[in-house]
């Protein structure tokens, strides 16, 4: 089983992930849209660039109502980003199995803080999704699977932190592979689409003269 998870399943998951992500992104870009014949109010490029950054901060009138999601969202995403790219085992894996180059990993204490932020953030976000009537109403199966799968991946990774047991490492790798296979077909794709999505919206609004 270990050989299967470390070998064929890993390559299958990697292939599905890469092909799936490219397919999803290209399907968005090549969908096309109706030509807009209206006279542009502003240049769309400025709006596109500005919106990519301004959307990092909630609108002033919305901020008090989404304080929990904002704080928990940043906790989770920054924690996950740090774990994914700067955890020592991940840096070693990227260097030896993916890119051939590595970089300085974060220290152990930073790993602990990052994982705690990520866990608490994801837990709060998912509980908010389930307990708040509005988010519960607009959530579907995919949202819950994505949240739970991400949580399980992080959990198995942290449980294998001692790196002394092959079983724990293989369990973590197996859950990662499940996530990679699920990723392109789920809303987890927002990791790749949020920038073009914001840019498109910003460009469209700028062209129409909408201040949003």
């Amino acid at each position, binding site marked *: 089983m270990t050989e299967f998870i470390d070998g064929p399943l890993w390559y299958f998951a990697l292939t599905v992930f890469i092909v799936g992500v490219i397919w999803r992104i290209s399907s968005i870009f090549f969908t096309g849209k109706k030509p807009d014949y209206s006279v542009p109010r502003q240049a769309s490029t400025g709006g596109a660039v500005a919106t990519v950054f301004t959307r990092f901060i909630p609108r002033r009138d919305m901020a008090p109502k989404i304080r*929990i999601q904002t704080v928990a969202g940043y906790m989770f995403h920054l924690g996950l980003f740090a774990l994914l790219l700067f955890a020592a085992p991940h840096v070693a894996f990227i260097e030896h199995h993916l890119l051939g180059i590595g970089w300085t990993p974060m220290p152990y204490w930073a790993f*602990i803080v990052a*994982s*705690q932020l990520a*866990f*608490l953030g994801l*837990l*709060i976000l998912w*509980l*908010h999704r389930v*307990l*708040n*009537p*509005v988010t*519960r*109403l607009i959530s579907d199966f995919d949202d819950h699977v994505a949240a739970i799968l991400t949580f399980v991946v992080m*959990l198995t990774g*942290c*449980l*294998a*932190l*001692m790196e*002394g*047991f092959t*079983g*724990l490492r293989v369990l973590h790798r197996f859950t990662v592979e499940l996530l990679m296979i699920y990723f392109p077909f789920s809303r987890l794709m927002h990791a790749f689409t949020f920038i073009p999505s914001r840019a498109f919206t910003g460009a469209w609004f700028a062209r129409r003269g909408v201040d949003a």
Partner: protein
Amino acid sequence: MPVSTDSARYTAWLERRCAVLLQLTLGMVLLACFSTLSFAAEENDLAGKVKDPGTQLWNEVRQREGVLQGTTQVAGMDSAVLINVDGERWRQFRMQQLIPAAGLALGGILALIALFHLIKRGVPVAGGPSGKYLHRFPDIDRILHWSVATIFIFLAITGLILLGGRLLLIPVVGDSVFGALASASKEGHNLFGPLFILGIFGLFIRFISKNFLASGDIGWLLKGGGFFAGKHPTAGFFNMGEKIWFWAVIVIGLVISATGLILEFPFFGQTRSIMALSLVLHGVGAVLLIGGAFGHIYVGTAGMKGSLDSMTTGYVDLNWARQHHDRWAAECEANDEVLSQSEVARAQGRSTLGEVPEPVIKGES
């Protein structure tokens, strides 16, 4: 016959010398034998009286008379103590008293809850659902509650594996699986522990104002909360049982947190004895909280019908509130805070029939 006489005298002289030599040799051999025998006998006599150097050293380092400090150039707490005999006492206490007592306590609480449920079958809402509601907990309180609950359950499971796993799990899953399980539990427990501290801090901030002693609380306690017989005693937003649970979570939670930090970060000068004591306090506190959580979960679900709604939807039925928190219900009614079914449904994003209306898309039949 001078020649023969000389020869005879020489022979006699030689014989005398040989005899003396023989006697001396024999005497020396006999002396050696006697000496050896007598030394061996003497050594046998001393065998039980003189300590073996290894045993003597072992007894010294065991330090039966208490923890003795030696000298060493190795820096660090307890580095001058080769063997701490208190560690063995702690191990015996943990294996022979703490773990069996913990198992007995948790098993006993579960058995009592099961017995109570068999007899009482849960407390129904007096008068049934009224169709009118009160808003009890906002989103933030419910998110906080379930966050702490999730972290607590994870810590309880991993903590119990670490506490009693060697005794209970190794015979079932074997050494190697338990090794991995224990390693994972230890890592997970240490990782989630600090989050629990944040959680109880949040609970303290959010709920302390409603958990001070109020009139009627002692009466509630004396009547056993109305669980066993008679009318339900009067209570405000939180009854005395909930207040006791709140303060138990805060106080015992702080003890568990402090002892947990002592154990997780062993580089602030704490000695091994302090860590052993911390582990005992940590375990006892955790067992008390887990036992309390069993009761809390039962009362919040099957034990008291309608209670769970307050932590899932945030709303409770008016009759439930009148039954269990009459003073709070009266306050809400006086302040005109009673909500109709349709008002709650709207707030929950549901139609008055309890279902979300299908969106009508223009152009579709």
